[in-house]
């Protein structure tokens, strides 16, 4: 009797548990059905050839398998897209918007979320979500909760690049960088904020110089901002006179820094993708003696996401595309150094051995060391830092 009761209990629980799954499957089928024939305009940073080619590959796959067309719209800064969506909302364009999906994170995500410009929640309802490693910070974006409004796509970490023949012993902290710049005047720089690489560099220095790092996890306090960030400005005031062009001008973006590194005008460059240098060496844009390195105490890392605007025309197509981008096949290919090298957000234990092996591929120039990842400051720090930087150094 007891056995029968137990069996019935287990069976009923099992059947109840399988209903949400079946329900979810049915929902997803509706999405894929609706997505057929849609065109998804994917707005993404177009500054890297590798990324553009990867997205094209993904688009072709999605066309083959789900009959969804993907058009890559290359942008220079996600802020422009945020502005465009906002303008559309103000003009009353509540559907048929020009952006179907965008590559976003940080303060741009925050602006979108607080202004109600996003569609969702949808991120955790797509089938590929089951592979995501939820131990990684995939539900928080610069300390702002994602609430399922954006799906994690990959991770990034601030990494530095140098040439072995020129820089044998690289600086491994902010302080060491200043000493290095003083010994090599005019050969160190960073992209001009508000370019996101430049802003991240400044954030990195702030996290090293600030007295109480815990402040960074909370929203910025306007009243104490100047006092709290003073060590950073003191540092920059010391760095700029020995920086490239004496800190009176800055490279426009990290691609320009790579080019200057290749020609010897700069001795260090930086990137978010730990495998960027390897790609550039393979394309003969950097000499083969290039190598990547990080800071001993860690550099800022983050997760980057995919989001769908509230007025997107092809919401279902966008979800199907996002689902594919999060699938093991796509994530593994993305992490392949010879393709893009952007680390995956998936749980390695849920992948096959062959797939895991791809994560271990190495190529000349890629980052060989493992450095701690520092968390991003809260999104509100970005605007405050950029405004203050422009005020102090934006006009020379």
């Amino acid at each position, binding site marked *: 009797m007891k056995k029968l009761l137990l069996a019935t209990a287990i069976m009923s629980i099992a059947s109840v548990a399988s209903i949400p799954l079946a329900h979810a499957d049915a929902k997803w089928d509706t999405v894929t059905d609706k997505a057929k024939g849609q065109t998804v*305009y994917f*707005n993404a940073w*177009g*500054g890297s*050839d590798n990324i553009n080619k990867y997205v094209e590959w993904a688009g072709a796959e999605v066309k083959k398998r789900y009959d969804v067309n993907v*058009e890559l*719209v*290359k*942008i*220079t800064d996600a*802020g*422009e897209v*945020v*502005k*465009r969506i*906002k*303008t*559309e909302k103000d*003009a009353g*364009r509540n559907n*048929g918007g*020009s*952006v179907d999906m965008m590559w976003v994170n940080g303060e*741009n995500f925050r*602006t979108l979320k607080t202004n109600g410009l996003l569609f969702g929640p949808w991120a955790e309802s797509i089938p590929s979500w089951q592979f995501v490693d939820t131990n990684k910070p995939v539900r928080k974006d610069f300390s702002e909760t994602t609430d399922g409004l954006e799906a994690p796509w990959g991770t990034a970490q601030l990494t530095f690049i140098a040439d072995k023949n020129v820089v044998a012993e690289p600086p491994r902290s902010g302080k060491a960088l200043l000493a290095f710049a003083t010994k090599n005047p*005019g*050969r160190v720089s960073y992209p*001009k904020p508000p370019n996101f690489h430049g802003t991240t560099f400044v954030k990195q220095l702030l996290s090293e110089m600030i007295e109480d790092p815990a402040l960074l996890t909370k929203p910025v306090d306007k009243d104490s901002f100047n006092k709290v960030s003073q060590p950073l400005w003191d540092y920059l005031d010391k760095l700029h006179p020995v920086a490239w*062009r004496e800190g*009176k*001008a*800055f*490279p*426009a*973006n990290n*691609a*320009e*820094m*790579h*080019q*200057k590194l*290749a*020609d*010897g*005008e700069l001795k260090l460059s930086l990137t978010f993708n730990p495998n960027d240098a390897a790609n*550039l060496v393979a*394309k*003969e*844009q950097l*000499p083969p003696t290039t190598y990547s390195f990080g800071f001993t105490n860690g550099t800022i890392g983050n997760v980057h996401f995919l989001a769908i605007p509230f007025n997107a025309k092809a919401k279902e197509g966008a979800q199907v595309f996002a689902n594919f981008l999060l699938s093991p096949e796509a994530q593994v290919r993305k992490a392949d150094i010879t393709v893009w090298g952007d680390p995956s957000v998936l749980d390695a234990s849920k992948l096959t051995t062959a797939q895991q092996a791809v994560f271990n591929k190495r190529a000349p120039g890629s980052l060989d060391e493992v450095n701690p990842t520092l968390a991003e400051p809260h999104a509100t720090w970005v605007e405050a830092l950029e405004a203050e930087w*422009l*005020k102090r*150094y*934006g*006009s*020379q």
Partner: protein
Amino acid sequence: MLKRTLPSLPACLAMLGIALTLAPLIPGLLWVLAPALNVDTWQALVQDNQFASALLSTLGSAVGSTLLALVCASLVTVMLYPGRGWLLVQRQLPVFLAFPHIAFAIGIAFLIAPSGWLARGLANLLEWSSPPQWISIRDPYAISLTLTMAIKETWFLLWIMATLLGEQAISRQITLANSLGYSRAQVWVSALFPQLLPRMGWPLVAVLAYSLSVVDMAVILGPSTPPTLAVLSWQWLTDPNEMTQAKGAAAALCLMLLLGLLILAGRGIWWGIKTLYKNPSGVRQRGLAFKSRRLFGLSVFVPGWLSLAILLLWSVAGGWFFPRLFPASLSLKSFSNADFEPMFTALWLGAATVMIALPLTLAWLEWGSRKHHGWLYAPLILPSLPIAAAQYHVLLAINLDSTAVGVIWSHLTWTFPYMLLVLVGPYYSFDTRYLCTAQALGHSRFSACLSIKWPMLIRPILAAMAVGFAVSVAQYLPTLFSGGGRFATVTTEAVALSAGGNRRVLAVQSLLQTALPLCAFMLAIGLTAWYARNRQGLK
């Protein structure tokens, strides 16, 4: 009793077409500039620490390049007109007029950057191992921007001068003034420039308006801390923050006001110069015998040839690092891997724009008012940034943003006036008796135009089409704004890649960008020759 005739159907269609093309800009501009009509915005603008420097560098580069271009074009004309050197100038001008300014700027950047070709030459001579700490491109005083714009504008002004000097009377005036005892240079200063300059008034305004509001060249060569006012305004207008957007609108309005002030100042200066010409003192100054006039005069094209050469070299280069003077290896990989889609996008956008602009232009010239057509040139003398922003707002309101129709419409705003400019001279001086004869033979006016007038004007019409196509290809801001980033043309690609590291891809896209208008011009010349192959009178 005279019967009032109603405008015919073609005339009505013409007016409608032109109204659709240009009229929506007016509400669009008001929309864009509305946030600027607020005292708080102006306060924020003036207090922004980037504003003052941006204003100065914009003013300096715009006035500087315009004046420099005027002086250079004048010098070349004085030195070379009307001999064989002048013919050489006229033969090379079309090539350099078709050379897109972005591609030219990119080539110049390749030449003079600290890791550029000139520096590498010096590095080889002086045995440097790293690039010098020069400040050449993106210098804080916008000198490299000014000089590069000046060169391109010199070519444009030379073309304007060549058109004005095409008349016989000018060379006779020179002979006459010479016979009165005045040397060559003095003849130009005292007798010819006072006649020519007033007729160059509007072209100079167009040049000034362009250099005040240029965004793409300023991004490539101009300063960045802070950028010029046009670039700053553009950055602000695309920022999500509302106050920043308002500052952007105010900055755009500021540019328009600046242009107005500069025009007034120019008029004032001209009025002052005229008083200097009263009561000529009759003093004849000895002329300088300038032996290498032709060499000096033609040197105005040297930067153009160098820029083109360096672009070609980079496009076929393998690995090429400082301080090598020539690439370590040559390969056509950059071409075979190149993305030709931006070129095709620019091609069909341009062709569509010209196909729509041509009937509009012809219809206006035929049935439009001769007195009022000056207004249609407005887009050429207004800063282009506010107009591009206005276009976006208009398209957004009628749901045509990010569509091909929207982008083509936005290109028409500049293509149409330029085609008008090229065609107006030959059109208005066309002998009306031909049309009269055709109509007397029983043809309607429209049919007579189609079969008689327009075929007779085939040469200027094809030239105007080539110019219109080149203008469309070169559009940057309108394609970006109205197309919502969906239409990547060679121009948008080149600017996007210009701050990047892959100079080979950049060189290939720049060359593709140059190839399009060049081919258009050659096609125009070829078609004219073919059409007129048995008809000497059309050549």
